[in-house]
């Protein structure tokens, strides 16, 4: 464990140096994050120019949900996104061999390969957005926020990591799907709106098979006061299950992998 922590420190330092050297990319990434957040905020304003609530979610609640969605998106983009996104290209080019032959767990190495410090400022903007949403909407009890929220936000982050990793592990099985991140983004984009609009059956799917509710909705519910104890347990179970699935599928894929180099 200490060895992996030392490796992680080195990788973080290298990523930081790279971000300082390539400042143009830093500012572009920052601009990208802020522009999209502003656009999605505008879309919420458009919805609420016609209604006071959407399936029980007020404007403030929805702004909190958007803030949570953006927070997890920025956390993902700032940590494992760039590394895991490379899996299909690494497999297609044959460069996966250089990762697999290193005396380190390859799944860890891929995920920790590239951090993006350009996402720190958008994270601050996300927290500001969440605070604004809470100030104009409902706010949960102190116990829900102090106990429930940390559990479900960590479960949400781990589920995001798992789903993203699972999709990209398909790069071992299908060639030239270097755009698989777009499929994740398509699914992820649904998660910034209340999934109750789809009805009960889809909501059930979003709690289990495609765990959008666990990823984004439950952390928002914890802050605005909609979270139940059963949902906390569900979040823990689903995130643990997806982490396990991701690990097993990756290991199985590596065992079946034959280099193209």
């Amino acid at each position, binding site marked *: 464990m200490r060895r992996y922590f030392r490796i992680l420190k080195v990788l973080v330092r290298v990523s930081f140096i790279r971000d300082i050297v390539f400042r143009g990319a830093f500012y572009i990434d920052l601009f990208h994050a802020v522009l*999209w957040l502003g656009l999605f905020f505008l879309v919420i304003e458009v919805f609420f120019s016609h209604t006071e609530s959407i399936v029980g979610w007020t404007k403030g609640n929805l702004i909190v949900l958007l803030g949570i969605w953006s927070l997890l998106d920025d956390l993902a983009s700032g940590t494992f996104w760039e590394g895991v996104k490379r899996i299909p290209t690494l497999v297609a080019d044959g460069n996966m061999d250089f990762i697999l032959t290193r005396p380190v767990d390859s799944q860890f190495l891929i995920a920790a390969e590239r951090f993006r410090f350009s996402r720190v400022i958008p994270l601050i903007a996300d927290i500001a957005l969440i605070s604004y949403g809470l100030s104009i909407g409902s706010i949960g009890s102190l116990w829900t926020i102090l106990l429930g929220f940390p559990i479900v936000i960590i479960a949400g982050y781990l589920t995001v990591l798992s789903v993203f990793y699972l999709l990209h592990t398909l790069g071992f099985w299908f060639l030239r799907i*270097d755009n698989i991140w777009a*499929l994740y983004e398509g699914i992820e984009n649904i998660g910034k709106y209340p999934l109750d609009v789809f009805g009960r059956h889809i909501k059930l799917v979003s709690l289990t098979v495609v765990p959008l509710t666990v990823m984004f909705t439950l952390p928002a519910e914890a802050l605005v006061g909609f979270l139940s104890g059963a949902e906390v347990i569900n979040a823990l179970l689903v995130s643990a299950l997806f982490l396990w699935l991701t690990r097993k599928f990756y290991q199985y894929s590596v065992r079946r992998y034959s280099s193209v180099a």
Partner: protein
Amino acid sequence: MTDRNMRKYWTIFRVVLENNLMYRGHAFVWMLFDLLWIGVFPFIWFFIINAQGGEIQGWNNSAIIVYYVFMAVLSNIVLMHPEAHMAYEIYEGKFSNYVIKPHSYLLYVFLHESAYKMVRFLAFIPFAVPLIWAIQHFGGSGAVLPQLPFIILATLLAMPIFFLVAAIIGMTCFWLEDSYAARTIFWASSGLFGGQYAPFELMPPILNTVASALPFKYAIYFPLRLISQQVPRAEMLRGLGIQLVWIAALFVLSSIIWKKGLKRYSAVGR
């Protein structure tokens, strides 16, 4: 165009089509993306429209479902995105290969994108069945069938408008080392000012005013409006006229940018 030229471009199209059919996963993923990211909007608007008594500014559930279903069709079949590919080739210097070849680069890119769209259309067909069911379930769009010739024409005219704007964005890489910011602005603008988040009647009037001065409204929103609602003939003709004006203006602009960009272009080691 001479017979030899036509054979040349047909070969380009065929080779790209074969390549995309071989590696069809790429097209399948983008097809799913275009379906998924708009998937939630009809449901949200259903809720809002029902809460407002069944109609807002002429938009009811039937019109909204047709709007978004055909947005999925438009995204998968008509709207081309050559900007990232062009920017990559210019940035990497691979563009040099095309400059020395005896064919038009823009036409090559257009054929490249057309072949890709054909593969995406094939991937889209299985999803068309539930989408057609959804349209029929919510009341269909039979009322707009008399407008069908205008719908087809508007959709055909939308293709070059969006292609030329995207190509111009791709050409910014002649000046910018990394055109990612320009592409991000393009994607955000086309979504907002193209009516991809909501029809303009449901958005603040200021957005409609700004959108009227940009080409995206006539590349995306205008065909969708014709297919979702009954539109007065004068408005249809006016819209088609504006589409033609945009095509001409963008063609001239892209030619100017192309000539200026070529003068600037240099590639190391190629």
